Structures are given as structure tokens and as C-alpha cells.
């Protein structure tokens, strides 16, 4: 048993060392897929946790009723389900100016003592006092104002006394943004309630995004009111006996004509999640895109090694390896690589996800590293194992099925001669002749190179399409509000897009590097032979560039529909990028491939001819 274990580890270690580039690419491909999966999974429910924490810390209400008159409070407070309430607090709107920025402010008038329900958590500074206002945190961050700064509200100057978070209203920039909300299945009356309040407060019906929440003393608020700007809304915070009944309570008391509109804590939680929901809208299809691309890379990688694998199967069988032993060597190798990649993916995803999932300043604390739950680990490792199993399947089946003799002779399979190509090439200059003959001699290898290029182009095209699509979806907001405030949602979308882009491009570049490198290795023996027959090193490396370009061209062309198809399959809607971009992609890829070939080709041409010709592997 120990002997077999030694044999397995020895074969695996040597094979990985001998084919380090392929092993690295396999690990990278799987790690990219698992890292993205980790991030996507970590995003799930990431806001629930901070919202729940915020709700607990601020004694968040179960229901907020927006009243048009304080007298509407009485029947609500007296309802049998109500355990406690406070308010109603007057609400008004104002135009806020700070440091050249303009924004809308939804202002709630509060007493100087913190209330029993919805007592916003003051994160810095102190609670409201005469002349001192408190700003909701995301709003304050977008404005760039801190404690001690001065803002003007309807031309009156106030000092920022504190920065706070609440669970009673969704944070900037979704406080009044109806468009964002209407498209989502939001529980509770949130959509009508805050939007209603916003409309009452003279914010446009479309729902501006640049409205934030401000608290001030009730007397300050009344001082801001005027005939032109009367107080039309009041917020009543309600605790129920059973928070789970919030929706039912809201249903029975909403839509009374000209009556109060109610929003439930579940509705607010959902609105809170909008920040991350949008991110997921980018990250999830992106992750799928990456996963599919990674699988394509792995498939090409394994395909490239199949004939090599076949030879190993034959050799092991000839010296007495049983099918199960042979299968085990492949399984152990791929499993080891895949598990390593899964660990890398988990760690990278775990480290990177706070960048994405930081729930926005609206909620208490930063989420820190999102919890990687056992189920996440299980799913990620599961994905890696599936990839490893699939990659081992073909050689394993061969081990069981194939004739040992055939398998062993696979290595010795003579190169095929393609008469026409050979004849055509006769009149060409030496590099072209050599390049064409390389392709003609090893059509299967050329085909695999083409497949690799196709995967590379597929990734680039998918990135371009993805960019075009995400840009068209978020460009309405352009990252800045009308008042010149940054919009955290759009910013995050763009961050996300950048992350996905970097990963896709990294995978494509690695693929390109590997393809050229592998092609040069494939041609090692032929190159040495050419040099042995008197060709100069430069002619040989030019020949390799010709061969590479010849096989890359069909791959690049096929890659375009593949990339668009991949994009269409993951992002259901979406505008397609302009053909100009696609043509540029093909040309750019070909030029890059040619350039990438030169370096390993030059290095290869410096190797000893004798050594290369003697090596059995070639």
C-alpha cells in the first residue's frame, strides 16, 4: 500500500513539475471560477445580517406609518396588535447645499432625547440639538461632510452635530428612488409609502436618487416650514406584538382614501438590500460567465493532453497497472490540483468579497469579511471536484477500455502528411514553408491551438458584450447625481464590472500565453530538425509565428459567436457590442498571439538541437 501511494504521489508530482504551465493554468482556471462563486455566494444574505443588526441596535420599528395629519395616528395606535409607538414626527423637505453639492433632504423633526422606537445609532458626534442636525451615514459620505461641518438647508445654515444610521428608512440613494423599487418584488407598502412621502414633499414622481435623510429638532424643523413649504407628512413608528404580522397590519390600514401609508420593516430591509442587489445583478452573470469560460479552458487543457495521457495509460498498463490504478493516477493528480485551486479560490474570494459586499455605510458597522459558511465551502469544493472528475474521466475510461498496444503506440503515431499543403508550401519562403508544414503535419495539435484561441477570444468578446450591457443599464445614473453627488450604487456596479473584467481578461491572457507556449513546445522537435538541416534560428521562430497565426485565425473567428452566445446564455437581455469592436478583437488577438509566440520561440531556438532530438517525449 505504501508503495502504491509513493508511486501515485511520484507520478503526480513529476507530471505536474514537467507540465507546470498546464498545471498552473488549470489551477488558475478553476480558482477563478471558485473565487467568483465564493463571492457570489458570500453576497447572498449579506445585507440581511447588517440590517438585522441595525434594526436591533436602533430598536427599529415594525411599521412606519406616514400620515398626512397627526390625527390619523389615533386609530393606528389603538389597534389591538400594537405594542408601542412613538411620534408622529413632522417631516419636511429642503434643498441641501454643501461644498458646491446640491441634494434633496428629507427631514424628520425629533426631540433631543433619543426615542424608544427608532433611536438612530449615532456613529460619530452627538444627537440633534438646536442648530445641530444629524445626517444619515451614506448621505453624509456621498456629500463628504463630517461632524462639525456646516450645511445649508433652504439657505439656513446648520452644524452637523452627528452621523447616524437607522432601520426605519432605506439609505441614500434609494430613499425616494421609485424606479429602482418598482421593478422589484418588494414586500410591504414601502413602494407607496416612502414614495408617497417623497411626492408629498415635492420630490419628483420619478423618484430622484439624490435625496437623503436628515434629523433635526422639531422646533428647527417648524422654523424651516413656511406657507410655501408647509409640513404635509408625519412619521409614526409602531412596534407590534408580533413583528411577523407587520405585513398583515400594513395591509389592513393602507389604502384608506387619503389615509396613512405604511411601510414594514421587511420592505425596508429589501430596499436596503438594493445596494447589494444591484451588485448581484452584475456579479451573478459575471460569475456564470467566468465559470463557463473556466470550464472551456479546462476542457481545452485536458484535450491538449489527451494523447499524452493515452501514452501514460498504455505504459502503466504494459508494466502491469490495473485499470483502477491507472485511473487513480489521473484522478489523484486532477483532484490535487482542483482542491488546491478550490482553496485558492475560497481564500481569494473571501478576501475580495468585503470589497463587494461592504453593505454600505447605511448599516451598522462594516460587514467585514462576509461569513464563508460551510455550505459555501461545500459548494465551491464541490465545483472543483466536479471539474477534476470530468477532467479525469476520459483518461480513466481509456484506461479501462482502450487496447494497451494502441494507447502506447499513440506517441509513435506518425505525423500525417497533407499533400496539398506540403506542395503549396514548396514555393514559399522558408518561414512560411516551415509554418505551413507544421500545421499540415499535426492537424490535431493545430486544431487544439485553434480551440484555445477560440476560448480566449470567447472571453474577450464576452467582456466587451458585458461591458456594453452593464454600461447601458447604469449609464442613466452615470455615477453622479444631478447635484454632483456620487451615487454609491452605480459606483459599486462599476467596481463589480471592473472585478469581473479583470478576471476575464486575466483568464484570456493566461490562455493566450499557454496556447503560444504549448504550440512552441509541440513544435520543439520539428524546430530542432529544421535547425539541424540548416535553417537559421530566426527563420524557425518566424515559422512558428506563421503556424501560430494560421491556426489562431479560425479559432479567433469561431470565438466571436461563441463569446456572444456565452453572453446571451448568461445575460438574458442585453445589447450586443458593435461589430467594429469584434473585428478589432480578432485582429488584436492575432497580433498579440504572434507577439507572444516570438519569445518562447526564441528561447526554444537557443536549446541544444541534440538534446531536443534525443528526448523521447517529442
Amino acid at each position: 500500500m505504501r508503495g502504491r501511494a509513493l508511486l501515485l504521489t511520484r507520478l503526480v508530482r513529476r507530471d505536474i513539475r514537467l507540465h507546470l504551465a498546464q498545471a498552473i493554468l488549470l489551477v488558475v482556471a478553476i480558482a477563478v471560477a471558485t473565487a467568483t462563486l465564493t463571492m457570489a455566494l458570500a453576497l447572498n444574505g449579506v445585507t440581511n445580517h447588517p440590517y438585522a443588526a441595525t434594526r436591533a441596535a436602533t430598536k427599529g420599528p415594525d411599521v412606519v406609518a406616514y400620515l398626512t395629519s397627526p390625527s390619523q395616528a389615533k386609530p393606528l395606535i389603538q389597534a389591538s396588535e400594537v405594542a408601542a409607538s412613538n411620534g408622529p414626527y413632522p417631516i419636511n423637505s429642503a434643498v441641501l447645499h454643501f461644498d458646491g453639492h446640491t441634494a434633496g433632504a428629507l427631514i424628520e423633526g425629533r426631540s433631543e432625547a433619543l426615542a424608544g422606537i427608532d433611536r438612530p445609532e449615532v456613529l460619530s458626534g452627538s444627537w440633534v440639538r438646536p442648530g445641530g442636525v444629524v445626517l444619515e451615514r451614506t448621505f453624509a459620505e456621498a456629500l463628504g461632510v463630517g461632524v462639525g461641518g456646516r450645511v445649508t438647508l433652504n439657505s439656513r445654515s446648520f452644524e452637523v452635530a452627528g452621523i447616524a444610521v437607522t432601520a426605519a428608512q432605506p439609505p441614500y440613494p434609494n430613499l425616494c428612488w421609485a424606479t429602482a423599487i418598482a421593478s422589484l418584488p418588494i414586500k410591504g407598502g414601502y413602494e407607496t409609502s416612502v414614495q408617497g412621502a417623497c411626492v408629498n414633499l415635492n420630490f419628483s414622481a420619478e423618484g430622484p436618487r439624490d435625496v437623503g435623510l436628515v434629523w433635526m429638532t422639531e422646533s428647527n424643523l417648524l422654523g424651516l416650514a413656511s406657507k410655501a413649504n408647509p409640513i404635509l407628512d408625519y412619521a409614526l413608528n409602531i412596534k407590534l406584538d408580533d413583528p411577523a404580522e407587520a405585513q398583515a397590519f400594513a395591509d389592513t390600514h393602507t389604502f384608506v382614501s387619503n389615509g396613512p401609508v405604511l411601510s414594514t420593516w421587511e420592505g425596508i430591509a429589501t430596499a436596503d438590500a438594493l445596494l447589494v442587489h444591484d451588485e448581484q445583478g452584475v456579479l451573478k452573470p459575471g460569475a456564470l460567465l467566468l465559470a463557463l469560460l473556466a470550464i472551456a479552458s479546462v476542457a481545452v487543457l485536458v484535450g491538449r493532453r489527451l494523447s499524452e495521457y493515452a501514452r501514460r495509460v498504455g505504459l502503466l498498463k504494459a508494466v502491469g497497472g490495473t485499470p483502477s490504478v491507472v485511473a487513480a493516477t489521473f484522478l489523484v493528480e486532477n483532484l490535487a490540483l482542483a482542491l488546491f485551486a478550490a482553496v485558492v479560490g475560497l481564500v481569494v474570494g473571501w478576501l475580495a468579497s468585503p470589497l463587494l459586499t461592504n453593505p454600505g455605510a447605511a448599516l451598522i458597522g462594516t460587514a467585514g469579511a462576509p461569513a464563508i459558511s460551510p455550505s459555501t465551502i461545500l459548494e465551491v469544493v464541490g465545483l472543483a471536484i466536479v471539474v477534476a472528475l470530468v477532467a479525469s474521466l476520459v483518461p480513466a475510461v481509456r484506461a479501462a477500455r482502450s487496447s494497451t498496444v494502441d494507447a502506447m503506440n499513440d506517441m509513435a503515431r506518425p505525423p500525417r502528411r497533407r499533400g496539398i499543403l506540403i506542395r503549396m508550401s514548396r514555393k514559399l519562403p522558408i518561414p512560411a514553408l516551415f509554418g505551413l508544414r507544421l500545421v499540415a503535419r499535426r492537424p490535431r495539435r493545430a486544431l487544439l491551438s485553434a480551440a484555445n484561441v477560440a476560448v480566449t477570444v470567447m472571453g474577450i468578446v464576452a467582456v466587451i458584450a458585458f461591458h456594453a450591457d452593464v454600461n447601458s443599464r447604469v449609464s442613466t445614473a452615470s455615477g453622479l447625481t444631478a447635484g454632483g453627488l456620487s451615487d454609491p450604487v452605480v459606483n459599486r456596479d462599476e467596481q463589480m464590472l471592473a472585478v469581473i473584467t479583470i478576471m476575464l481578461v486575466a483568464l484570456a491572457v493566461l490562455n493566450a500565453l499557454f496556447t503560444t507556449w504549448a504550440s512552441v513546445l509541440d513544435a520543439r522537435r520539428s524546430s530542432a530538425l529544421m535547425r539541424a538541416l540548416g535553417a537559421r534560428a530566426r527563420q524557425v521562430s518566424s515559422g512558428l509565428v506563421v503556424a501560430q497565426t494560421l491556426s489562431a485565425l479560425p479559432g479567433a473567428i469561431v470565438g466571436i459567436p461563441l463569446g456572444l452566445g456565452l453572453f446571451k446564455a448568461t445575460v438574458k437581455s442585453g445589447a450586443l457590442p458593435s461589430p467594429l469592436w469584434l473585428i478589432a478583437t480578432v485582429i488584436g488577438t492575432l497580433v498579440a498571439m504572434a507577439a507572444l509566440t516570438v519569445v518562447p520561440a526564441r528561447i526554444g531556438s537557443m536549446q541544444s538541437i541534440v538534446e531536443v532530438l534525443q528526448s523521447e517525449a517529442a
Partner: protein
Amino acid sequence: MNASPTVLVHAKGLRKEYGSGEGLVRALDAVDLDINRGEAVAVIGPSGCGKSTLLHLIGGLDRPSAGVLSVAGQRVDELSERALAHLRRDEIGFVFQAFHLMDELTAQENVELPALLAGCTPSEARARATALLEEVDLADRARHLPSMLSGGQRQRVAIARALANDPEIVLADEPTGNLDSASAFEVLGLLEGLHAKGLTLVIVTHDERIATTADRLISMRDGAFVDETRLTGGSRGNLSTFAEWERLS
């Protein structure tokens, strides 16, 4: 199964076909063969006559289409894939024209491979491989990769590997086909030494001069035996005669 315990390989009506219909190739047809323990058999014949096919069948690398074949008391034509693997591992040593060493393993590790497959402990396998490499005079090359060895050295490693599990029979398919005469001399000397120690040998070759030095010479044509010559009336022949001749010429 075999009447005589001295019979190591017994074949009756052995047939091997490749392909089907129009493309059917009968590589071996109605071959009867008995090889005794300790015998050295040479198989000659023109290219494509079925020599390698015969060797592959005896070695359990391939299965016959028809006929009976038993090796070391086991019915090769009836064994499971797994049992065949064990037969190859424990009873048979192969030497190929193209060496077929594992490129990623050193000479030593290549020789250890069959022993490790057979479940030997690492130290047993190492000790055995060291001794075998000593025997083929390659102790100083143990840590070299095949790519760093000459053709003759590679073939000697392959022979050491073939002997790793103390097989009953060594099957060599044109073992000197890729070698210059000096290397061929070394390899043949080794095989002769094995034969002298009582190992059963089947050598396929193109070269009649090698062939005439075996105990028995089988000539093949179109998948059948056309001639069988007992060169030394059943006693051992002398492979090294050729080797000597090569050396002097």
C-alpha cells in the same frame, strides 16, 4: 491446465483479427505454439506478418479473437482486464523497440515502477531497482531522466524494468531495432545472460543473424508459422555468438 509443467506458453488455434468487413485484417491465423520454461525463441518474418501481434497476445497486452492461449497456467483468453494486468505485472516482462520509458521518471524510478505497482514497499522496490541497475551496468545513471540517456542505455533500463518483478518470461519486440551495433551488443549480451540463468525469452527480430542464436527459430508469413527450426536440438543456443560476431566485424 497444461499437461506438462515445463510448458510455459501454450497456444492452440490462436487467431487475431483487426477491423471488420472489407477492412478485416487477419494478423494471426491458426497459430499453435508451445514454449517450454527456459527456452529462448526467436520470431522472424517480413514486416506486417504478425510478429508483434503474437507477442502482444502472449504478453496479455491484447486479446485473441479466437483460440486458446495460456501463459504460466492462466488462460489469457479468458482473464478479466484486472487479472490480465496482474499477469503482466507478475509473470511477464516487456522490452519494446521504442523503449517506452516514462519520461518524467528517472531510470531508477522507472525500474521501481512495476514493483511498486505490485505492492512492494518503497524500500524493497528501491533495493530491487538498485540491484537491477547494477546488473545492467547503469548504477551511475540511476538518477538520470530517460532524455539524458543514450538509446542503448535506455533499452538497458527497460530490460531492468522488465525484470523488476522476477517474471517467468521476457518478451522483447525488436529490442535492438533502434540501436547501433555496439549498443545492440550490450543489450543482446544482457538477454543472453538472462537466458543463461534460465529465464524464458521470446525475441522478435528482423535480423536472421540474431535469430539463429536462439534455441528455436520461428519464421512467420502472413499471420502464420511457415517454418520452425530447433537450432540446437532443444538445448540452449548462444545469443552471444552473434554478439561476438558483431563485435569482431
